[in-house]
């Protein structure tokens, strides 16, 4: 019985100064191969300067069914945003 190559999630930094961003996924037998494959699959057009690979099974994701309790409570915290505060026009650049 043969096992399939596991799935990996690929994160690429496009250039220094930017964060690694999720680019997609691919299959590889091990981490080194995942890096090599990611280089060939996702940076053929000069899209990256750094790559992270994470085996997909190691990612813990939030459950969308809990989105209400997870994320909605943050919606009404308007006082966290600068526009919540009134300042006279004379005060510039704050």
């Amino acid at each position, binding site marked *: 019985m043969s096992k399939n*190559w596991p799935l990996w999630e690929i994160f690429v930094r496009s250039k220094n100064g930017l964060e690694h961003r999720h680019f997609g996924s691919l*299959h*590889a037998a091990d981490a080194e191969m995942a890096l*090599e*494959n990611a280089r*060939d*699959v996702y940076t*053929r057009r000069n899209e990256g300067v750094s790559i992270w690979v994470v085996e997909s099974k190691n990612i813990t994701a939030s459950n969308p069914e809990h989105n209400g309790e997870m994320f909605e409570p943050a919606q009404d915290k308007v006082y966290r945003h600068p526009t919540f505060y009134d300042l006279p026009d004379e005060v510039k650049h704050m």
Partner: protein
Amino acid sequence: MSSTLKDSRLLENYILTIADNSLILAQRLGELCGHGPNLETDIALTNISLDLLGQTRSYYQYAAKLAGDGKTEDDIAFLRIEREYKNCLLVEQPNTHFGYVIGRQFLFDVYHFMLLEKLQNSEDETLAAIAKKSIKEVSYHKRFSGDWIKRLGDGTEESNQKMQEAINDLWRFTDELFYMTDAENAMVEEGIGIDISAFKESYYSQVSEILKEATLAVPENKYFNKGGKEGVHTEHMGYILADLQYMQRTYPNMQW
């Protein structure tokens, strides 16, 4: 530099001994596009083919400029007779199975890297520049093929057998890599070419080390074949050229 040469034909010939390897290996890898063991590996091998093709073009464009007779990179690539191609026998060997593809690549990459490392210091500025650019690509090829040698050698019993079969079969073409032609000797004297024969020992020790790590036996065969660098090829070469040259031969003197 080249203008001071007594015979720029020798330099052209020297360029071809390097460039033809890249062309023919790129052609062999091109055959595999769409037929790899899985998508990721297919894409990786095509990348190597594209790197080699890019190198080929840089060398041929330079050779065409040296010839100065209006020839183009394509004339050099497509319109020579078989005896005029100077690639080594190793790179023209067929894609018998994936073990052969990796074995051929690995045995060539280790050599290729050594050659380019030195060629970066050539007194010929153009060659040095091409080598500088190419060595980054070839450094990656070498790592890629070396990793795969280990995977296949130290993978399953079946893969070990297949990888060993390929290495045993291809081994007899390795000695030619270090054979020096007249053009090579002349270019060494000019400070342009590389005395690659000096690297033979280091080559075999590097290759052996990785083979051992891959739990593969280093072949003990002491009988080698050569001829490609002098234009005497294996029977495979005619068929490679039949494909490669098909359009240019069937429809001569046209732009594509």
